[in-house]
């Protein structure tokens, strides 16, 4: 089994999403200007990298058997919806953005906040671009529903994310760079991410 690596060009930017992540229902001119200047600065340091492999899966009750390893998660099983092909991927927009966020978090928290909102929007846009290209409409990450965060360790062993895209896993299972995603992607139509999420009191819950 081979791990493939892809580098993407900048996926289209959705400013509304950025503002949502920044906690803004509406933006004044000053905030819009802040956002644009942060986008310009972030652009210089963003990279869009994905590493992935294809896995075949057999489902037995609430267990997904991927051959060499299995994952117990009823929610992932539901997500598979009978599909036996899964794309396992790791994606990141790189560590330079973290540097920028760290810098401003010390000297200008408003920029740090905006940059981290941009990072959140960018990594989602990257995942969308990758999933669309792979014909996958649904992605499911460790930490969603009953899929344990511990699964991250297995994913990192398989994908060798560090070597391929510079993505690492910390002892507390937090990923570095921070604007990164690992997920099982399943073929099918795209669904509204927020709609299928059970955390209904989330501050970032989007329009349904």
């Amino acid at each position, binding site marked *: *089994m*081979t791990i*493939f690596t892809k*580098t993407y060009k900048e996926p289209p930017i959705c400013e509304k999403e950025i503002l949502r992540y*920044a*906690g*803004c*229902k*509406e*933006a*004044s001119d*000053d*905030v819009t200007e*802040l*956002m644009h200047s942060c986008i310009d600065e972030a652009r210089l340091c963003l*990279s869009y990298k994905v590493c992935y*492999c294809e896995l075949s899966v057999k489902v037995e009750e609430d267990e997904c058997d991927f051959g*060499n*390893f299995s994952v117990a998660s009823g929610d992932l099983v539901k997500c598979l919806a009978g599909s036996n092909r899964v794309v396992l991927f790791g994606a990141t927009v*790189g*560590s*330079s953005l*973290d*540097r920028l*966020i*760290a*810098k401003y*978090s*010390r*000297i*200008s*928290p*408003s920029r*740090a*906040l*905006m940059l*981290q909102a941009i990072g959140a929007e960018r990594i989602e846009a990257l995942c969308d671009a990758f999933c669309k290209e792979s014909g996958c409409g649904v992605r499911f990450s460790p*930490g969603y529903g009953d899929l344990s*965060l511990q699964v991250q360790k*297995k994913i*990192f*062993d*398989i994908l060798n994310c*560090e*070597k391929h*895209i*510079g993505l*690492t*896993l*910390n*002892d*507390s*299972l*937090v990923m*570095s*760079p*921070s604007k990164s995603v690992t997920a099982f992607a399943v073929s099918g139509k795209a669904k509204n991410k927020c709609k299928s999420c059970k955390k209904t*009191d989330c501050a970032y819950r989007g329009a349904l």
Partner: protein
Amino acid sequence: MNFKEYLKDNIVYLDGGMGTLLQAQGLAPGEYPERWNITHPEIITNIHKDYFDAGSNVVCTNTFGANILKFSEEELEEIIKAAIENANGARKQSKNSAEKFIALDIGPSGKLLKPLGDLDFEDAVSVFAQTVKLGAKYGADLVIIETMNDSYETKAALLAVKENCDLPVIVSNAYGEDKKLMTGATPQAMVALLEGMGADSIGANCSLGPRQLRGVVEELLSCASVPVVLKPNAGIPKAVDGKTVFDITTEEFATEVADLIKSGVRLVGGCCGTTPEYIKALYRASKGLTPCKLTDKNKTVVSSYTHAVEFGESPVLIGERINPTGKKRFKQALMENDIDYILNEGVNQQEKGVHILDVNVGLPDINEVEMIKTAVCELQAVTNLPLQIDTADTCAMEAALRRYNGKAMINSVNGKKESMEAVFPLVKKYGGVVVALTLDENGIPETAQGREEIAKKILAKAKEYGIDKKDIIFDTLAMTISADSRSALATLGALKTIKEELGCHTSLGVSNVSFGLPVRDAINGVFFALALENGLSAAIMNPYSADMMKTYYSYRALKDMDDNCADYIEASSEFAQVIAPTQMTEKTKEEYKSELQSAIIKGFKEKSAIITAEILKTSAPLDIVQEEIIPALNMVGKGFEEKTVYLPQLLMSAESAKSAFEKIKEAMPDKNAKDKGTVVIATVHGDIHDIGKNIVKLLLENYGFNVLDLGKDVPPEVVVDKVVETNAPLVGLSALMTTTVPAMEETIRQLKKRAPWCKTVVGGAVLTQEYADKIGADKYARDAMETVRYAETVIK
């Protein structure tokens, strides 16, 4: 023959891929290939033997990920022992008569180092040290550090090799298509760092095929004085009919790599996707080529984690502002451990255009070793400029050099025996360009000739330590002309002779020349121009001085160093700019009570500072706080609570208020305006997210609290120790991940035990009221304003 001797006159053939071959033999996804040294020794031995037979002089042991983070101590020893035995077995079995060596292979730890990740630099050194010691113990001939995509981790690995064995060491990095490492370093920066620390060979491997790596290789060849190594992939993997195929053939690979041998590469092999066939083809394609002669590039270079700065034609500016000498406000910041103040000085100087930042944090009453270590680590998290480590304390110097992510500039050594004996070993070990002051036991010679003599003495002594003259920059000591009218002439004369006769670069602390005179900038600017004309390579200077910057840009434009005067034109707008508080429009008058309030509410940071400075001329500092800043903050805070103002706007206003407060502080540096009480804040152990915590800090400070920020990933006992030490009435804790909430709970538990008087307020993305209750927090705050309001009830 030993490896170093063989390397002198030969093209060295390394081996090719291992992982791809093991997968073909049944290595499962996610299975650790290093274990196969023990479980499948015959397969590993055969692969090594195939490489020796194909023409490899060096095989790399199957120990890419063999480190203490992945394996237990016992298993690690077993793996490395077996791996070297397997390679040795292959060496004995191979009939090829070529010289054969075994390299202990060291790959990345799999972790990112702090501040980007959670592995501490010293811990990384220890991780690699364990592997190195075992490799040396079981008889490896050399070490190869490979596929590293972060300069800091590469430094940790090389330091571990240097501190734990005497084996030759090859260092190879994984560069991307942008010709940089994933964490940003250019080939020039890596060469500066690695040559400085004494790597025997430097190069590139993995990530791309030979064609895509050509640009990187050319850059390496242009600046490296040691042999360059290249181990590219067999192109890029593609899936064809369910099988993995690399996209270039053995012949294409061989031709491309052989071509790069002609350009100067001295060690060649392959990485992912390459097999003994590739090495065989490469060996055939390059047979008979003569190895290119190595040339000493003789470049004076310092580097950061992203780029190198070379001393040469264009003058190098070294910002002098991170230094407490003569700066009351800076001293206060140091005493209060106010790192943010230092960071701001760094970032501001970078914006002014300096190339290097001088870092001096020495004060009689502080622990300089700890302070400089902190300052270096924190500065390199917010700026990518190379740093100049400026200290007279060699322990502090070593602590800073060790942690520095690049090849530092070192300030300074001088002609005294004691100074050279203390500083030169550090320069040799960690690399660096050292500023040498032309003074010795007899003081500063009055004449240029006397200073040149000391320079010669310093060069001779440096040579004994194996330090080349390219890594020494002479400071011929600018002395004030107010004490001796001939002093500038002596300094300038010494500059000229050292440059012309010794062929060395020079640096000056320019501002000293005007000490004791009025309008010092005027003298400094002209002296700087004279020094440049006499061959000055670098100046330690104040970038906020318009006169100095004018001289710098004008000089470059006049000396044909600035195409189309583009830099001059860009900078000139700033020379001309006079920022004055603007007149309030009628509309502003109606909406806001004052201009300062308007600036704060609208979030104009610079304007707030300027207006504050202006009204400080007529109003008392504390009146401005009470009548202007606090009301403005309250207005925005109230708007946020009523959801008419959103978070980014709140922060912009808070930052503007902070910049106004900074001016107030400058006006009364001896008094602490913040006397409301102390709040200790931290992001809990295991968590590295700190934006939320920093937002809370900013707002608490705005509202007059004295905030002790312990940073992120803070162990429970560190928080408790600080609370006990300061008797703080309130602690704020932040956690973003569910996995780090237990660390928050533990911190609260320990606080209750050892500091029962102290209240706790918690926040962060995963927290809820329910969670907060469960872990025993006194208060759950949804946002920063709520924390402020709670603090106001706790501390009255």
